């Protein structure tokens, strides 16, 4: 059984508690970024570009069996690391769970305090986009209730 969004966030907070200072935390975020899977060039298009980020971020959803699988990347490594965290928290969840669970880990890790204003805004933009997809798929699910169709964005 995959952990819930709340559990996934708790795991991340525990993982980061292991580090003494921000340099180590940044190093860890960079490592996460380096090992984060890239997305195909087809999806690096204007349609999937997240606005409000200083570096370029692409995010696209795939809706399968009632769950949204997010695929995302950035041309900047620290942002890729943040994306890896967001994916761990939000990807593969139901629209309802995504829409109803706030990203508490962002505050708990003190991410906003340690990211530049532009970065913090970019992170907020990504979360906003994830939530918007969740709401959209949630509504789509309701309107298609019972016919079992799979939808892609």
């Amino acid at each position: 059984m995959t952990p819930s969004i709340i559990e996934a966030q708790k795991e991340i907070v525990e993982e980061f508690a292991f580090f003494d200072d921000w340099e180590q935390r940044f190093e860890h975020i960079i490592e996460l970024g380096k090992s984060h899977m890239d997305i195909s060039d087809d999806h690096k298009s204007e349609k999937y570009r997240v606005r409000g980020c200083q570096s370029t971020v692409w995010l696209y959803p795939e809706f399968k069996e009632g769950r949204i699988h997010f695929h995302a990347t950035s041309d900047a490594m620290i942002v890729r690391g943040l994306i890896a965290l967001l994916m761990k928290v939000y990807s593969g969840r139901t629209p309802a769970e995504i829409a109803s669970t706030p990203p508490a880990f962002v505050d708990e890790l003190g991410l906003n305090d340690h990211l530049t204003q532009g970065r913090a805004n970019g992170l907020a933009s990504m979360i906003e986009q994830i939530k918007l997809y969740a709401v959209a798929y949630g509504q789509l699910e309701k309107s298609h209730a019972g016919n079992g169709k799979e939808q892609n964005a």
Partner: protein
Amino acid sequence: MTVAHDLQPEEKKQAIVVPGPFDIERIRADFPTLHEKVHGDKTVVYLDNAATSQKPRIVIDTLNHYYTHDNSNVHRGVHSLSQRATFAYERARGKVKNFLGAESEKEIIFTRGTTEAINIVAQSYGRTFLREGDEILISEMEHHANIVPWQMVRNQTGAKLRVIPMNDRGELLMEDFYKLLTKRTKIVSFVHVSNALGTINPAKEIIDAAHGVGAVVLVDGAQAVPHTRVDVRELDADFYTFSAHKVLGPTGIGALYGKRDLLERTPPWQGGGDMIDRVTFEETTYNDLPHKFEAGTPHIAGAIGLGAAIDYMHRIGFENVEQQEANLLLYGTERLSEIEGLRIYGTAADKAGVLSFNVDGIHPHDLGSIMDMEGIATRVGHHCAQPVMQHFGIPATCRASLAFYNNTEDMDLFVQALYKAIRMLK
């Protein structure tokens, strides 16, 4: 050199300027922000001077003094405070006049900054005199503030916008400039010193050639006045503009110089108080220069603060400013050149203190973020000059920009942090 910060503004006026050797540590002591701590215990290394300069204590004290003792509206009151404020505001105009080498205070208009000044010229002079088929000539290395206002007036008038290209060193292609310059060219507007590349453009040559075809020339001096002595009459510029905050002054204030006859012929841009002579519902006659272009209550404190900044620059002396920045630029360029995979953008023969660069395989935002953790303030982005980025086919650069109050230790700490960032990100 007199130590500016331990004198009261009133005393300072009488202070005798004794030119002395360039004492960098005494100068740094005048700038409180240079001693700020960030991320815990890291003293800030400020290398974002092209974005805005830090302020010496005397500028901060002057603003404080104005609001504490002289605050009042200008040009209106018969009372003492208003007269004091007016006197201080108009004296600041005189300082700007001398700073730019203008002939008369009437040629100095206070604006919100360079951006507003360019918009004033575009919307007042440009919109009035441009006709369909006329051409406006700018360059490939312009800041957006010297592109967008001309696109707007182009759309309003049917004029055309032409662009002088540059080479990969970031130098204007002068042969192309001469080809683009024709009888149709009515306005030439170019950047004196590029904020993204540091290139110092051959202003006098461009102005003389433009005058040869009868064009009027605006020079964006935002990045020039903090680094070099500017003389608008020597240059023969028709319009010249700069922002106070890039040359030790407050934000929200700057100046537009315009030749008197041009300003006389140009209608005002904004209407309101202070810019009028007589108002009836049928007709309004306008005030004289420079007030014709200063509608509404101006940024009085800002102008006075700018005056203090100019005084401070004069005390440092431009020969010292240029020498210190040239030394640092040379040193920084050498240190950066040692780094594998690092490319400097902007390698013009004539260049001011800007180090714009990228490192292979690393996003500049990542570099900037890690360096910030080390207390190094650089700018990462397109520097409001996206066409420059397009020229080099890159989204952004990391930029360290220098001021005379930077020292070699700043450069060492910057390069050390850069090595660390590269190590973490590679």
